[in-house]
């Protein structure tokens, strides 16, 4: 048992740094990643045969992306790297992993979860129309496939990704019709002193905004989406400007998102206890700053344990690997541990400032019109979900899910979950932490029935 290799789930910045750290200590970790090529989302690599240079793909982050990709490639032969591998269940020291149509049971003694994040969205009328994507999805279309999601594109939402993706599209030659931020201008002014502590990260954000302005892209702050219009695909977005006036902007594509949500299903199946995080407004698996969790042998790294971005993911990946090594009896380099934790703390401060500058517009979810589709998998409206809460007396989110089917579809609440929790809490006039969280269910993503038999 003692020489069973450590397992890492996820090959983004956290997983890659964790793997490199374990290899440096003489171990041969198993690295399981859903993607065909490692790098994660922000440093996602295009398929073989694509030729754009790093600078075109990753801009300011080109050097970081190249370093991480080279680091992963350099580990070849020294890690048991399994791309295209979906971990779909975890329990009692074993995980289930589907790869190339074959399932493997992998027993583990210690394991680092580096499962990353996805876009956090709030539904609005018309959001399921063809042509409407998440901000992350729009970025993947461009980076991973060399495609724009449309010809006349509106970007909507809030957070650093809003401006980054809009800028990347404009730079690649797409027509950006508008960048519409739900965060009021005053929120950014309030956050300014703390944002300045972000240094280069903050400077890059300002640069994207300036570059969009210089290209004549209309930018608006403090807006509220009203509805996407269209019959078989999106043709326009209606929104309310900060001054209260209703506006309509024609488009054939729309990308939106309101920050990120942590991907936590496996942590849940592994029985790591969750706590409500007021900054991220999401239930998150408990972890110490070292990456250790209350479950012995299980560690969390990167955005899957709480959103902090790619730079923090690298630091926390290394930190979690060092904790794992220490728990295996390896000597710890106290100076390195202190440096990593200082770096993580500095980023956490900046991250809190970002939440002030780009606040999650929970009011949009609380006030969602009854006829708005809340759950796109099952076609459940906000009104149907509220009725489950009220008439059927479901004061807890899993019970409301059982009555309404909201969150019961193929995505298991990844898309609707954050907004559904707010809809329910608002309907019951309860704080969001009191209505619970959607439980993780195996398989965490759809798999062929033959695999489970």
């Amino acid at each position, binding site marked *: 048992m003692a020489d069973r290799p450590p397992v890492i789930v996820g090959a983004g910045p956290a997983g890659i740094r964790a793997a490199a750290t374990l290899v440096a200590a003489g171990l041969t970790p198993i690295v399981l990643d859903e993607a065909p090529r490692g790098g994660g989302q922000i440093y996602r690599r295009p398929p073989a045969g694509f030729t754009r240079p790093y600078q*075109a793909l990753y801009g300011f982050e080109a050097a970081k992306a190249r370093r991480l990709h080279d680091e992963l490639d350099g580990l070849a032969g020294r890690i048991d790297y399994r791309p295209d591998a979906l971990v779909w269940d975890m329990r009692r020291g074993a995980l289930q992993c589907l790869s190339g149509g074959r399932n493997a049971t992998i027993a583990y003694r210690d394991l680092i979860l580096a499962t990353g994040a996805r876009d956090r969205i709030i539904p609005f009328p018309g959001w399921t129309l063809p042509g409407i994507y998440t901000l992350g999805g*729009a970025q993947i*279309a461009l980076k991973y496939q060399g495609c724009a999601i449309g010809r006349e594109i509106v970007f909507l939402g809030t957070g650093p990704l809003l401006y980054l993706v809009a800028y990347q599209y404009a730079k690649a030659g797409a027509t950006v019709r508008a960048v519409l931020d739900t965060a009021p201008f005053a929120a950014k002014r309030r956050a300014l002193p703390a944002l300045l502590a972000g240094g280069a990260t903050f400077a890059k954000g300002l640069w994207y905004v300036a570059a969009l302005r210089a290209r004549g892209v209309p930018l608006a702050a403090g807006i509220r989406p009203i509805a996407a219009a269209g019959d*078989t695909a999106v043709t326009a977005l209606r929104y309310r400007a900060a001054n209260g006036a209703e506006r309509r902007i024609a488009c054939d594509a729309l990308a939106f998102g309101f920050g990120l949500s942590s991907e936590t299903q496996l942590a849940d199946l592994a029985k790591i206890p969750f706590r409500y995080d007021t900054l991220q407004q999401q239930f998150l698996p408990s972890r110490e700053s070292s990456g250790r969790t209350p479950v012995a042998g299980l560690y969390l790294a990167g955005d899957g344990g709480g959103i902090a971005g790619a730079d923090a993911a690298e630091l926390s990946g290394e930190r979690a690997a060092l904790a794992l090594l220490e728990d295996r009896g390896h000597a710890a380099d106290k100076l390195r541990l202190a440096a990593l934790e200082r770096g993580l703390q500095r980023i956490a401060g900046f991250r809190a400032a970002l939440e002030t500058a780009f606040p999650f517009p929970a009011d949009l979810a609380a006030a969602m019109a009854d006829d708005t589709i809340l759950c796109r998998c099952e076609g459940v409206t906000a009104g149907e979900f509220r009725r489950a809460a009220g008439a059927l007396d479901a004061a807890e989110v899993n019970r409301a899910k059982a009555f309404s089917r909201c969150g019961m579809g193929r995505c298991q609440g*990844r898309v609707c979950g954050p907004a559904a929790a707010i809809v329910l809490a608002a309907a019951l006039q309860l704080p969001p932490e009191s209505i619970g969280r959607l439980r993780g269910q195996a398989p965490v993503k759809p798999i062929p029935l033959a695999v489970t038999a």
Partner: protein
Amino acid sequence: MAASQFHRLAERDRPVVRFVVDGRPCEALAGDTVLTALLTNGRRVRSAEFGDGQRAGFCLMGACQDCWVTLADGERLRACTSFVAEGMRIVTRDGNGR
């Protein structure tokens, strides 16, 4: 169906892959996902099961599960995380043409 949702801005110099959507011959490029292949040839991927219209993917990262399609041989695949292949026959409509 003349209009396409996705538009290529780069990486056009790749071998052509021929595939079929609901009996219609289409062309994509090697390295395209099935989602990219479908959306550079049209504006839809499937019809929602519960009657709220057409869908054309959403998250592109294998999280939302809104782009599952069926091949002519009955195999189901998630369009955003599967690559298009020469001769692939994709069925996006049911027997009633929806």
